[in-house]
């Protein structure tokens, strides 16, 4: 079985996001491989290490030249080769799923791993949209995964708790915290990664257009009252806080 694992590059969680010309401007921002996608890369490696029949693990990124860095990280973690569809076009998840599905098809992938909710779009759509395009089942918010003879078993979160599941392969799995702890690339592996294949493709090949346009972006911070209550006398502080919540904020009866 071949595993295709998607890799995206997002601002570091602690980095300041800035806006210019009504759009998010990532110039000068520290960018990292999305933590959710990192779980996917790690899980592919662990499935192979645990003895599942994994022939090859391929990392895929769609985006500008800089996303090469994220692919190099995935290669250094241990994936076998990488595909970079290089474009400056900003594709929404529904449009991007068209590229991912086509490549999954060409590669003959039996399992596609995608981050559960990415830290730039705050979107959960890519995995499900890719699964629909491929006509495959999907498992989202997965925190436990096992691959056996042509099938997947595991556990994932649902609205009111969690479920154990079984599904036939091929399938799309979206990852989340708790699935694993991603490894750090070691220096020897970083050196080895430089010799691994990183194939370049152009977006034209896939005939994809964005379906959603960003018309504006702003950093909106709600003005907070920042009213500090002296905590030295716990009883007085508690009474004052309750009074504010009841009579000023009117959020408690």
């Amino acid at each position: 079985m071949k595993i295709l694992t998607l890799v995206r590059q997002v601002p570091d969680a602690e980095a300041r996001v800035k806006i210019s010309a009504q759009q998010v401007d990532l110039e000068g921002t520290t960018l990292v491989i999305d933590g959710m996608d990192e779980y996917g890369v790690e899980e592919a490696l662990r499935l192979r290490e645990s003895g599942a029949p994994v022939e090859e693990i391929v990392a895929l990124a769609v985006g500008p030249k800089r996303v090469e860095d994220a692919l190099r990280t995935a290669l250094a973690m241990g994936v076998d080769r990488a595909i970079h569809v290089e474009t400056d076009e900003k594709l929404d998840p529904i449009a991007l799923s068209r590229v991912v599905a086509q490549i999954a098809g060409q590669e003959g992938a039996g399992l596609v791993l995608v981050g559960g909710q990415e830290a730039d779009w705050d979107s959960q759509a890519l995995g499900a949209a890719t699964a629909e395009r491929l006509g495959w089942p999907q498992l989202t918010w997965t925190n436990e995964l096992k691959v056996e003879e042509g099938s997947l078993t595991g556990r994932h979160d649902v609205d009111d708790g969690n479920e154990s599941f079984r599904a036939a392969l091929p399938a799309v799995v979206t990852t989340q915290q708790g699935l694993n702890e991603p490894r750090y690339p070691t220096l020897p592996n970083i050196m080895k990664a430089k010799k691994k294949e990183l194939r370049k493709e152009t977006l034209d090949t896939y005939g994809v257009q964005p379906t959603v346009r960003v018309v504006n972006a702003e950093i909106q911070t709600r003005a907070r009252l920042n009213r500090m209550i002296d905590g030295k006398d716990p009883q007085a502080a508690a009474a004052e806080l309750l009074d504010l919540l009841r009579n000023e904020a009117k959020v408690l009866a």
Partner: protein
Amino acid sequence: MILIVAEHAGGKLAKSTLEMVTAARESGREGPVTVLVLGQGVAEVASAAAAVADQVLVADLPQLAQYSAEVWAAAAAQIAQEGEAHTVLIGGSRSGREYAPRVAVKLDAPYLEDAIRLSVSGSALQAQRYTYLARVTETVEAQAPVTVVTVKPGAFAPAAASGEAGEQYDVELELPTPRVEVTGRSVEKSSRVALTEADVIVSGGRGVGSPENFAAYVEGLADRIGAGVGATRAVVDAGWRPYAEQVGQTGKTVQPKAYVALGVSGAVQHLSGMGKSKFIVAINKDAEAPIFKVADYGIVGDVNQIVPALIEAARK
């Protein structure tokens, strides 16, 4: 028409469905507001929906007893096509955001995800949504014959029943067989109100000190004031609390009227899940904790001393 796929649980229409009715009416899109109820034994849900919608389509079928992404997507897409819906609204719950993208692909429609506001600009539908761990509010737009939207829970006021109940119609569906077999379910039962529905949430971080303190202070205060219980990622990672209580980027996003953060430092991942709360209260002994920057009311002090006093005072 505007098609809303109802969210319901335990035989009750969820608040999120009423919120979607408001979103539909405020969107500026024209046509009757139609609610589609999928499930088994949903008569009560359907009449509750009829009280707020122009019409209700009911698919009361054994194959719909259990939610499945593939089945729900097929049902919603079929009805959207037959009813020539130009807008399809789906709840922004975990399951809603799981099957909505499949509906969009089936309808070859653009998808506006987790909208907090909807409006019409020319012939395009515009949505506001949070991005970059909720640090940015983006306005996105799509221009197409049909657009699929998920609506963020808590972003719109729930619609109130109007004078006349909408007509109810039974619908036929051709449904696929789900390919994901559920082999076990663990429902996180709680006598408390669900996090995404709670008006008030009391949440604890590592600063609370221990799992025992968490139970005494966070749960103690929540029970006293009738609030939901939340936790930070650090607390969940440490195994003090179940993942279902986690608020933040990798957990739940909440928007209550009041969010009371006990011993929470205020990491970006956590703020992205609760930063839009109407009022934020922070109690932490570290005066430098970032949570105070976003707090409306802050107490620099020991949770172990302040919270018992708070529980006591709330009793009065």
